[in-house]
């Protein structure tokens, strides 16, 4: 296996085009454990971190551009980003330990294509777009379209993500992410849930997105959520409000979980409902606080 660290997009695309066995990486926090675990080594690894576009972080023209190869630790320390997308930063801040966050990136988290990736549900809930470069030039895709199954993406061999473009939050809009793990740290999500809520001047929900992790082969959006939550002032959860049951049912309808070493399908269905409620409440509270 050889290592190269190109300093431009063109150089990187060229390397990838010339080496069919090449693979990009950023933090290597998925790549190296997978190689240790017996997956064949790529013939060439292409380090994306020295390409300026992949480590840029700025807000412009109603969008945030977040480099795909920025380590989570940099994202969580960024005050502007945290204020704009507290849920996304929560997701990034839950990836592994401080050590892992010193390396792990949004690009890697997405392209590793695990249904349990913690930063992906918030990215999807936020309607983020991935900017993709490759032999065919630059294109963009909704984050929700990048992953097509466990360990499989829609990117071709010469392609990689340079950055994410995330619509800047409007007044009255915010997000949240929560996951469940048996320990407090160092675990892969048994279930995760992200919510983005926009409220009107009276604090009434105008738009909602709820996205779940680890309950299906890919991250899934609960498309019925917006209809259920619209027009409501979202209070703390109490069993009395019937719409929580509706939301719960909508969540369960989206779940297609498996029994595995991290939890049972039954358990995931139950806890997905709990987490969806919790993140909706948090996102709604945060949204009201922006008013």
């Amino acid at each position, binding site marked *: 296996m050889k290592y190269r660290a190109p300093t431009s997009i063109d150089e990187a695309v060229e390397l990838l085009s010339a080496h069919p066995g090449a693979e990009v990486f950023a933090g290597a926090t998925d790549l190296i454990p997978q190689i240790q675990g017996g997956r064949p080594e790529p013939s060439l690894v292409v380090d994306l971190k020295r390409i300026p576009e992949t480590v840029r972080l700025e807000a412009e023209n109603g969008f945030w551009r977040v480099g795909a190869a920025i380590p989570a630790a940099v994202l969580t320390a960024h005050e502007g980003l945290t204020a704009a997308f507290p849920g996304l930063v929560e997701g990034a801040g839950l990836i592994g330990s401080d050590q892992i966050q010193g390396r792990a990136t949004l690009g890697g988290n997405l392209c590793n294509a695990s249904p349990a990736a913690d930063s992906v549900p918030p990215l999807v809930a936020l309607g983020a777009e991935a900017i993709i470069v490759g032999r065919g030039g630059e294109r963009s895709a909704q984050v929700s379209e990048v992953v097509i199954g466990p360990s499989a993406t829609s990117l071709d061999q010469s392609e990689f993500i340079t950055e994410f473009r995330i619509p800047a939050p409007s007044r009255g809009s915010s997000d949240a992410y929560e996951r*469940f793990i*048996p320990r407090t740290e160092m*675990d892969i999500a048994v279930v995760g849930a992200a919510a983005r809520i926009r409220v009107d001047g009276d604090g009434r929900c105008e738009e909602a997105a709820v996205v779940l992790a680890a309950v299906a082969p890919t991250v899934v959006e609960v498309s019925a959520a917006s209809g259920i939550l619209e027009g409501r002032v979202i209070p703390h959860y109490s069993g009395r409000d019937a719409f929580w049951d509706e939301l719960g049912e909508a969540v369960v309808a989206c779940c297609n979980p498996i029994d595995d*070493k991290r*939890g049972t399908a039954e358990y995931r269905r139950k*806890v997905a409902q*709990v987490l969806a409620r919790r993140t909706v409440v948090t996102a709604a509270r945060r949204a009201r606080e922006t008013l």
Partner: protein
Amino acid sequence: MTTTRTGYKWVGTRPVRHDGLDKVTGRARFGADYATAGMLHGVVLRSPHVHARILSIDLTEAAAMPGVKAIITGADLPDIPDETGTGSEGGINFRDLSRNILARDKVLYEGHPVAAVAAVTLRAAQRAAEAIEVDYEILPAVLSLEEAMEDDAPVLHDDLFTLGLDSPPDRPSNISRRRVIARGDLDAGWEEADVVVEREYTTKAVHQGYIEPHAVVAETGEDGRSTLWCSSQGHFAMRTYTTKVLGWEPGDMKVIPAEIGGGFGGKTTIYLEPLAALLSRRAGRAVKMVMTRSEVFRATGPTSGSVMRIKMGARRDGKLVAATAWMAYEAGAFPGSPIGPGVMTVLACYDIPNVLIEGYDVVLNKPKVAAYRAPGAPMAAFAAESVVDELAEELGIDPIELRLRNAVTEGVRAVYGPKYRKIGFVETLEEARDHPHYSAPLGPWQGRGVASGYWFNFGGETTATVSINEDGTAVVMSGCPDIGGTRAALAQMAAEELGIDVHRIEPVVADTHSIGYNDMTGGSRVAFAVGIAVVDASRQLIDDMCARAALIWDVPREEVEWVDGRAQSVTGAAAPLTLEELASGSGATGGPLSATVTVNPRGAGAGFSTQICDVEVDPDTGLVTVLRYTVVQDAGRAIHPDYVEGQMQGGAVQGIGWALNEEYIFDRNGVMENPGFLDYRMPVASDLPMIDTVIVEVPNPDHPYGVRGVGETGIIPPMAAVANAVYAATGKRMQDLPMSPVRVLEALSGD
């Protein structure tokens, strides 16, 4: 917190440990930190199947690969006879040991070694191992105790006939042994009981989880003599076992102990050592082997999974009058679960007149278990102490009070035979009862549990040498690896005796060629047994130095006494002679000052612990959070209280892990699904509160300072303490470990 003060200068204090500086600067050398120029790297080819016959092994391609210097398979080890030796934590069968190190005709678990390769680089060795072709005939696997014990279960070993049955069996089975302990008249006991509780409990295999993987460097010379650098809990045992498996002479092998990065019982046996030594012999070069974490999980000893049924009866006044226990422990691929200590300890805390305990050692297609901290006792205590808690509730008696009414005390005959000598169980219960923790208020979904535990502790064969340098400093030499601060404790005892500063003493762990035989560091024996030898050697030296002073002063020996590190004339006839003066002039008075003592002491002093646990349960997710935890334990005497507390805290946290999330998870085919720290969930710092400790000191009369072993007892009560707390919080009795969120939520939705 220490409850009693000592009148000592060093014993009971907290000096910085002698090996500390090396450990905070990265200079300490652990097993994998050794290297020699030109050494080869060795790897193990492991079985992908859980149960299969090896039909053939083809090494042709692998042997021809560049850089490959030696390959060995089971056929390269002598087929040694069925012979049992002793280890500090139970017997060891060398035939089984050999077959566990390298399979001969059958593989018995996924990860079972089939061949080993040495090559010039690790990569070359790995590639060559992949190129070895093994032809297997897959055999039906036995993956649970229930399956293994069925009459028509596939049998792992054709020659395994159950020992301990009333009439000898006529065919082989997977049950290697039955152990029975009985006393009194059970029928009469049940008759007398007003309340009876009977429950079944299960626990899963869990790993010791030491952070340092097994590692060894072996160098075998042209003359067949070899040197091993390795981290283990006992380099003498490593030598005995390794040479036995290889058919070599122990005297031809020197084992140099590395610093050991945790063992907890798991490094009391050998895995890589004979492979590296033999590969080195074949290749004529040194060979280094280091396990990956996945190998550590898949192929080194976890402790047993278990199934236990406990029944206990008590009178209204709380007196326990009858108990039965049926226990089956997984041994893994070869016989040797800790069922022995399991049956001995399960009811050992209580004075119960009528008892029947029955235990089974069962083989199945999982890695061979190894010792793990108080082997066999923690799961037994989980079951027994859960039943005691339930009885307390039914009787309406406070659980600590119920234990006090039945606690064993000095002179009571233990259920497994001997009478207890001086013990501190009642004191741990009283301290727990009076601790502010026990009466602190609790919130909703919070609960408190208590549980107790008992461990024998061990003495063992021991050699120690104390020598005085010419500048009056001293060297304390032992042959027991220091896992948790025993060097400091030994130096403190020597300092106390010799009357010199503890930091003028250098405690060292000597290799097999530099000191006499020592049993392993295990059974909580070092501060006790090596302590006795060090104190004895120090006293011999003092006697010798007094005699030399008498010689110098030309007075009778009786007129010299040792005070504060100096020989002093009782009559005041001469100015005192310091250690330094005596040492620097020792050439004129009979030669160097050094004393060696060998002992094999009994009376290690039984250890008891009582622990209090508060938990909070999230009713939505089943998550159990430990809010507060207190360990009360009898240490006899804490030589270095920091390290006694450390043992109590470490043991309790291992038990908390065992209680909540740790378990071997196997897929349908018996392949371990979680052979890494990400999914084998040991507690991390943020999972825990501070672990409060109360050291009770009921001195052990058989040790000069009253030491009892403290290393093991701490891990025994936690699972029951947590389960009892979960019950208090939720009203649900958790009878299966681990109490993972999935299980707890299931129990909560059971209404």
